[in-house]
Structures are given as C-alpha cells and as structure tokens.
C-alpha cells in the first residue's frame, strides 16, 4: 500500500471573540479545534473521518485543502507539503464542503468552464469531461439555468462536479451527503464508489455511521480534535456495529457522553 496522504501532528487553534465565547459558553479565549492529529491515507482507498459536531473534522479538512494554515504539524499530499507548497497541493486535490459556494448569478455551464480555466485544464479535455459529468448528474438539462434558480440537490451536484474539473487524484469531501434527500445522496455515494474504482483516493468526513460502513475502507475517529482511533473498518468494529464501537470508544476516552 502506497501512502498518498501523510498527516503528522496537525494542530489548529482559533482565537474566540467575545461573541463566540458566548455562543460556545466558555471563558477561554482560545479554542483548540484540532489537536496533534496524525493519520495516513493510502492510494486508492476511501478514508472516513468520523466525529460528532464540533469534533474538528471540517477544520482538519480545511487545513488539508490549504484554506487555513495549521499552527503546528504538516501534511504531505501526494508529495507536496500543505505548509510549504499550498499552491501545489491545490492542483492535486478536489475539495468540497458546504462552505464553498457558487455564484448564483452564473449558470453551471459558465462556472464549469470558469473553474476549468482557473485549473488550467485544456479546453478539449474540459469539454469532454464536462459532458460526461453533466450527463451523469443530469445537469445537462439545467446547464443554462442560473445556479440561484436550481434546487438544493442540483446545486450540490454542480458544486461537486465543479470541484472535480481537474480530475484530481485526491478527493476531499466534507459531509458529502449532508442536506441531500435519499435519492440524491445515493447518486453521490455511488459516484464516490465509481471514483474509488478508478483508483482515486477519497477522504470523507461524516457523522453518519452508515455512510462510513457503506463506502469506507479505513476510518479515523475524532473526539475533541484528537484522533482517538484509526484503523480499517473491520479492525475498529471487531464484530460489532460501527455505532456500538463509536460509543464504546467515546466513553472510554471522554468518560461519559454527557460531559460535553
């Protein structure tokens, strides 16, 4: 197995404003969102980050996608360091999270071409890929409709294909099925499995056990910003369901579930 993503000792703290302190119900001025987090993902696998709300999944993925810089630690993405060569990392990954919005004024067609251009995809290649993506997700019928007028599911599909204009080897998806109805969610998970079959490496974050069970080869559990368990799905589950194992590990690490 060839490692393609190597995360070592990632740490991220946020300074909390007075307003944020109130929302988080804390007096501390600094929030440690991710704490000394390490894991490795191998080429061609689907790696799942599992954690409850506020565990630090999104923060971890944002660091991997070079949107934010880690306070400590580094990650090597297909040979490129997120700290030293963020621009190179961006060429290697496709990142999708609900934070990334598309300009509602433009059509899927325009946006696809625009992002292809930013990624430097040759025009012919871009056109072919666009056609196959649009057909697969049924975007072709809405290609000239402004994004603002599309349904949530269709918007999500457009976001998805736009994040993959450059056919990256590593795909990082934060909560890929969040807010989607069961049909659309299935289209997305099927697509992820197809990508895996094509040899892509996929990192997904979720708090949905069934999604992990369905598509992931290996899983990392994050609690309060720390990686508490990281192994193959079989090894972690050890004959039980993922859900049962999650609560066992949670209690073991945090004491009681009510603490938080």
């Amino acid at each position, binding site marked *: 197995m060839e490692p393609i993503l190597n995360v070592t000792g990632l740490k991220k703290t946020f300074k909390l404003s007075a307003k944020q302190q109130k929302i988080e119900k804390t007096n501390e001025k600094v929030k440690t969102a991710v704490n000394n987090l390490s894991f490795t993902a191998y080429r061609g696998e689907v790696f799942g980050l599992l954690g409850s709300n506020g565990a630090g999944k999104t923060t971890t993925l944002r660091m991997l996608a070079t949107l934010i810089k880690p306070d400590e630690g580094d990650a090597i993405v297909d040979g490129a360091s997120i700290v030293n060569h963020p621009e190179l990392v961006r060429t290697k990954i496709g990142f999708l999270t609900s934070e990334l919005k598309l300009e509602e004024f433009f059509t899927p067609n*325009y946006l696809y071409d625009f992002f292809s251009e930013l990624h430097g995809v040759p025009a012919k290649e871009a056109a072919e890929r666009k056609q196959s993506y649009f057909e697969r997700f049924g975007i072709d019928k809405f290609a000239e409709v402004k994004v603002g007028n599309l349904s949530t599911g269709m918007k999500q599909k457009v976001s998805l294909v*736009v994040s993959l204009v450059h056919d990256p080897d590593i795909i990082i998806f934060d909560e890929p099925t969040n807010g989607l109805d069961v049909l659309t969610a299935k289209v997305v998970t099927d697509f992820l499995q197809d990508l895996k079959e094509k040899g892509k490496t996929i990192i997904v974050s979720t708090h949905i056990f069934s999604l992990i069970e369905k598509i992931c080869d290996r899983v990392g559990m994050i609690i309060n910003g720390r990686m508490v368990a990281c192994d193959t799905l079989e090894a972690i589950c050890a004959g039980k369901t993922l859900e049962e194992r999650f609560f066992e590990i949670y209690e073991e690490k945090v004491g009681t579930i009510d603490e938080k």
Partner: protein
Amino acid sequence: MKNNTLTIIKKEFARFFGDKRMVFTTILMPGLMVYIMYTLMGNIMTNQFTSADNYVASGYVQNMPAELEPVLNELPVEWNDITSDEIDTIQTSLTEKEADLLVIFPENFVAELNSYDVSSGMAAPNVEIYHNSAKPESSDVNVMLTALLESYEASLSNRFDINAGQNDYDTASDQDMTGQLFAMLLPMLLMTFLFSSCISVAPESIAGEKERGTIATLLVTPMKRSSLALGKIISLSCIAMLSGLSSFIGTMLSLPSLMGSTSGLDTSYYTMKDYLLLLGVILSTVLVLVSLISIISAFAKSIKEASSTCSPLTILTIVVSLVPMMGGDMLKNLGMFFLPILNSVLCMNSIFSFQMEVTQVIVTIGMNLVYAGAMTFGLTRIFNSEKAMFSK
C-alpha cells in the same frame, strides 16, 4: 499564472455586464444624474440672473450710423454718443458695472460697407461691442445687439465683422464670483459621484463574495492570490472608470447650459488640454478610490459592514472637496498635491477655474497611480490572510 488574472477579469465583467440593473445603476445613472443636476443648477442660475423686464440699459456708441439708428433704438437701451477719448472712461465704468454696453462703429461705416468687396480678402469693416458678463443686464443686451447685427450682417453677405479685433470685449473682472463658485461646486459634485460609483461596485464584488462564500471556492483553486487581487482591482476599476466616464460626459454635456447661464464663464474657454487632464485626474482618482474601498471590503464580513465602514470616508471626501472654498495660499503649495483625494479636488478646482498648472496635475496623477499600486499589493496580502478571509 498571468492568464488567471485575465480569467478573473472576464468573470467580473460577465457578472457585471450580464446584469442590466447593475449596468444601469452604476454606469448610466451617474452620467444622467450629473447631467440633470448640473442642467437644473444652470437653469436656476439663469432665472436668478436674468435682468428685470423693464430695465433700460445704458449704452455708449461711437460713430452711430444713421441707417442703423432706428434698429438700435428698438433695443431696451438708452444710447449716448461718445467720442474716442471717452472710450477709456466708459470701459472703466463697464467693469464697475455702471455702463452696460459700448459699441464702436468704424467711421463712415455704411460707406465702407458699400465699397467693401468680400472677395478681396481684405479685412471687413469691424464693429466692436464691449460688455460685462458679470452683469446680467449687460450680457442680455449684448446678446440682443449681437444677434441683431449678425442678422443685419448676414443680409449684407458678411460685409462686416463683429469683434474681430484682439481686444478683450468682455470687461468682467477675473475674480468674477459666479465662476469661482462653480469651480468649487463642480469638483465636490464630481467627487461625490465618483465615490458613489466606486462604492457601488467594490463592496459588492469583494465583501459580497466573502459574505456569499464564493471567494473560498476561488481560494481552493491553484490560482495565485495576487492574480485574484489584480483581477479584482483591474476589473472593478474599469467598471468604476466607466461610471466615472459617465459622470464626466454628463458634466461636459451640461457645462454649456451651466456656464452659459452664468456670466463670467463659457465652456469654450476650456481647451482640449483641460479636458484631457481632467479626464486623467478623474481616472486616477477612481483607481485610488477603488483600491481603497476594496481593501476595506476585504476586511469586512458583509457588504453592509463594508459600506458602513466606508461611510466616514464618504463624508471625509465631501469635506475634503470643500477645502478649496476655504481658500488660502497653502493650497497652491505643491506638497498638497501629494495627498490623495485632496490632490484630485485641487486639480479639478484649478482646471475648472482656469488656473491649472500642469506640474500639479502630473504630480496628482502620478501619486494616485503609486497609491493604487501599493494598495493592490496590500489587497494580495489580505487575500492571503486567513484571518481576514475566514474570520467569523
């Protein structure tokens, strides 16, 4: 990744020009507003300065031709005959607004007229009319008399000239108050319109993208952040410049009615050079304003926050635009032209009041370009700053 700058510019243009409402409010409106406002101002001035209906002007005439006497007597002017040695005295009293009109016909005007051969190429007999444009009554009768003589001249197949000499036939003093007033009002209005056009594009494009979460989508692409900053500044400046150009055209179109109505100024006094320099000042001012507002917008979390942070700047701009009214020799100091915004105001003021010095304009445009460049660099740094881009 130079072409990414271009990609961003193309996208910004597609966004802007694809939206008819935006094009209308940002580009067409300012010009229209300037035009309507200035023209209205011009009309109000005209009404204020037109003379009372029953006013009889006091005119002085040398060598009044008997043939023309009945025609001239139809004007609301009481004519007094004078001799050549009185001319100086009359000109003084014109300047002092006691007399209204001084007309000098050549001796034997009619005889000369009849013997003049148009095809000879010789100078035609010349009639000189002096008036004082700072006095509305004087301007009025001047217009009437000139029109009268011109139609007479036309009927005689251009056998004489009016005011063909090199003299300054308008005896209004240089310090004419009305002209000064306009030189102060125009820059203020122009600056206000320029500022509002910049404020209508930059926060929308930069703080707006942050607010709507679309800038993060750009930031995960391999594009350099400097390409984004440059692309934004260039495209926004172009759009704001179009808007500025619209204000400029509005100003030019309304100047005749604005200036024509008031004595003392006449658009024909502005040369091509004045117009070009004014345009240069306007465009460089737009660059400064766009980059300044872009930086503020890049820090703001929302369009609303960006606009409200900019509002003290709006007030500052208006206050600075009023500085020339306070006068003072300090304003002639070249050092003043190194200060952004003030330099633009001073330049516009000096261009409108015919006191423009090319060095001042060059310093202004040069400094504005330097400021805009520095701020574009600053914007790149902000796009690179996680704190500015993603703070909650």
